[in-house]
């Protein structure tokens, strides 16, 4: 644990150097505040919005709206992509049916089909959640398939020679064997969805941390943009850390053979 923190020191140090550089450039380079707001200004803006909110919603409400959309989409993606991926890994026919669909839509930029989603599902949360869902689905699906595909066949063979039914093999052997890869997918997905968040809040939103940044950019409020980006970044680190912690609790055998 001490080692863990000892290594974290370097990350903090690197962040500190960047902060310092930011401060020095803002202080001495004499740039307009629109190009580069000062760290102090951004912090001030943070307190201001923290107390008064931004355009009718408090900062916490903006963040909560975004996270609500994110979590609903994340949950939906998890309960569909992971089981489908695991099944695809076991059933070659299902896999050859689903793989082309996923590889077709996966590289598409979310904004390309967002309009269609809005036309179909309206301008409320539905289309936003659908967009996030699609962003998160493919990484979870792909790594779940890979988790099964990479498994040594001895695991299934061994379980069968012990008398296990196919059902028991799936739930007690294939699923845990694939779990480390599933978690890789869960973390990749979170990153993907997070980066889609701003795009999802572009259309007809009146709240959300992504919307706040976009709205501020219309009025060139650089300090609000900076503040929003930093809040999103820190939230991302917290979410990824939570997932990492969960992974170490659940897949406790990973990397210890």
């Amino acid at each position: 644990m001490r080692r863990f923190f000892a290594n974290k020191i370097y990350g903090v140090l690197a962040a500190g150097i960047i902060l310092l550089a930011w401060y020095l450039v803002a202080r001495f380079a004499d740039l307009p505040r629109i190009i580069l707001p000062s760290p102090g200004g951004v912090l001030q803006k943070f307190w201001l919005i923290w107390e008064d909110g931004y355009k009718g919603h408090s900062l916490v409400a903006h963040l909560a709206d975004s996270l609500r959309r994110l979590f609903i989409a994340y949950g939906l993606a998890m309960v569909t992509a992971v089981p489908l991926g695991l099944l695809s890994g076991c059933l070659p026919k299902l896999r050859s049916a689903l793989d082309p669909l996923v590889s077709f839509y996966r590289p598409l930029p979310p904004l390309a089909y967002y309009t269609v989603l809005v036309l179909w599902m309206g301008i409320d949360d539905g289309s936003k959640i659908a967009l996030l869902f699609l962003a998160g689905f493919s990484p979870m699906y792909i790594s779940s398939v890979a988790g099964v595909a990479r498994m040594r066949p001895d695991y299934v063979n061994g379980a069968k020679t012990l008398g296990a039914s196919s059902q028991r093999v799936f739930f007690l052997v294939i699923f845990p064997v694939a779990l480390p890869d599933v978690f890789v997918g869960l973390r990749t997905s979170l990153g993907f969805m997070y980066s889609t968040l701003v795009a999802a809040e572009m259309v007809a939103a009146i709240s959300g941390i992504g919307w706040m940044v976009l709205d501020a950019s219309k009025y060139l409020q650089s300090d609000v943009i900076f503040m929003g980006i930093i809040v999103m970044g820190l939230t991302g680190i917290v979410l990824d850390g939570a997932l990492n912690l969960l992974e170490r609790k659940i897949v406790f055998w990973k990397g210890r053979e």
Partner: protein
Amino acid sequence: MTPEPLSPPPPDRPEDFPGPYEVPEDLIGAQNLSLYYGRGEKRRAAILNVNFSVFPGEFVCVMGPSGCGKSTILNILAGFVAPSEGRVLLSQKEISGVDWHRGVVFQKPPLFEWFSVWENVAFGPKARHRPKEEIRRSVAVFLERVGLSAWADKKVYELSGGMKQRVAIARSLINDPMILLMDEPFGALDALTREKMQDLVRKIWWNSRKTIFFITHDVDEALKLATRVLVMTESPGTIAREFSLGFSRAFIEDSDDRAWFSEEFYRARKAILDLIAGRADRDAEAALGPRLSEKERE
């Protein structure tokens, strides 16, 4: 972990160990087994026209160089792959697919890392829906038998290689399979651990009268364990010679390893190695006794 001293054979064990050809019914009958890879001109036989029987209570070792198709034979017996030609009879019934009557111990045991040692051993009886009380009792018995009683609650990654293989053996035996198939189970272990594991398996075989089919590329291992050895040669994999051995039994009866240092042991060893290398050595071959096929004809 020191192996427990060998217990004397149970009193109901017949004094004269039945030789293979005195038993009327074979447990396993492999008939004209061949397995081909590829198609057309690239077609290559992994094993070609392999015939053998395994009789109840035997310890059969299949010995041969890497790539001779030893593991292919085991995979067919286990039901993991179907032969291209031929069939396997288990108690006169043709096998199809995998079931728990044939237990398998792999070289790298696919233990369930997400379970404890206890849960790994209990996996078989649980899968077969045995009553809870019975499972508790028999898991304790089989952990005791492989010397892992104190390790029941440990996670798999806390075990050494030899201990993992002990779990794998207990996990298979608890189902009381008709035959235990072992695929180079000690090939990845260090020499000292390997010897302990050989003693353990020999003891289990002797006390439980389990039939064991054991693949190895180690000639000493085959000589020290087997009551019968099938020697394979490669490309295409086929059984060149089979013969009976008494070293394993001598070891148990003497509770002493002098059988390993007898002249007989070294002659048999040389004969097998010559056979695999394709060297004909009449003197050495005489050590193996008459070819079993000839004996059968008499």
